[in-house]
């Protein structure tokens, strides 16, 4: 397997597939954030519900930010920029923080 030259198109469409994987993951995060908002507003509006909604929206935006940066990097030339552990860690931490919010809402 020889890597294609910079600026060439990848015949296996690897960057596109990875970009779409980021889109799918963002969509899943959106569904979870909507469920979180619904759960926060179950007992009617109030300061706690508002804070929960803001927190979940913030986490969703954090995830969206990572995904957006990565999608832009993947839309550039071939080979694309490498994915760093910092981005992976940020995406995973947003997910874990959503789970912590969920625990607080369930209890």
């Amino acid at each position, binding site marked *: 397997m020889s*890597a294609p030259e910079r600026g060439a198109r990848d015949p296996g469409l690897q960057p596109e597939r990875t970009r779409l*994987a980021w889109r799918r993951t963002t969509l899943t995060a959106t569904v979870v954030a909507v469920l979180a908002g619904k759960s926060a507003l179950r007992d009617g509006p109030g300061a706690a519900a508002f804070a929960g909604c803001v927190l979940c929206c913030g986490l969703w935006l954090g995830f969206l930010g990572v995904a957006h940066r990565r999608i832009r990097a993947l839309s550039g030339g071939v080979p694309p920029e490498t994915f*760093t552990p*910092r981005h992976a*860690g940020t995406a*995973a931490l947003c997910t874990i923080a959503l*789970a912590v919010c969920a625990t607080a809402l*369930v209890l």
Partner: protein
Amino acid sequence: MIEFARNVRLWFVPERIREDGGTPDYRFSLANERTFLAWLRTSLALIGGGFAVDQFLPDLRWAWRVGLALGLLAAGVLCALRSVNHWIRCERAMRRGEDLPVSRFPALLGIGVALVAVAMVVAVLVGWEA
């Protein structure tokens, strides 16, 4: 455990990963990234399942509802942590030209999800309602 701590340090000092071996073919790195994303989606789905149990089974007894929801949420957290750790381990193995790491996590997660599903069927069928 020491290995895990070393990997966690790599999350925040990403330059260190470049010290190992050579850069692999970018297509392998992208495949590894997609695997990471697939695991992250699994994690998000488990968290969504936790929310769903809490919201859509309101007639269940409190202990069952909260227990099942917390089980799913804990599985989601574990899955997210493991996704990053496994991604780093695979990336390092590829840089060093070693075999990819094996893991018993998928089997354990499968058993865990099956147990939660059985518990949910029992709880709904037997109807331990509040």
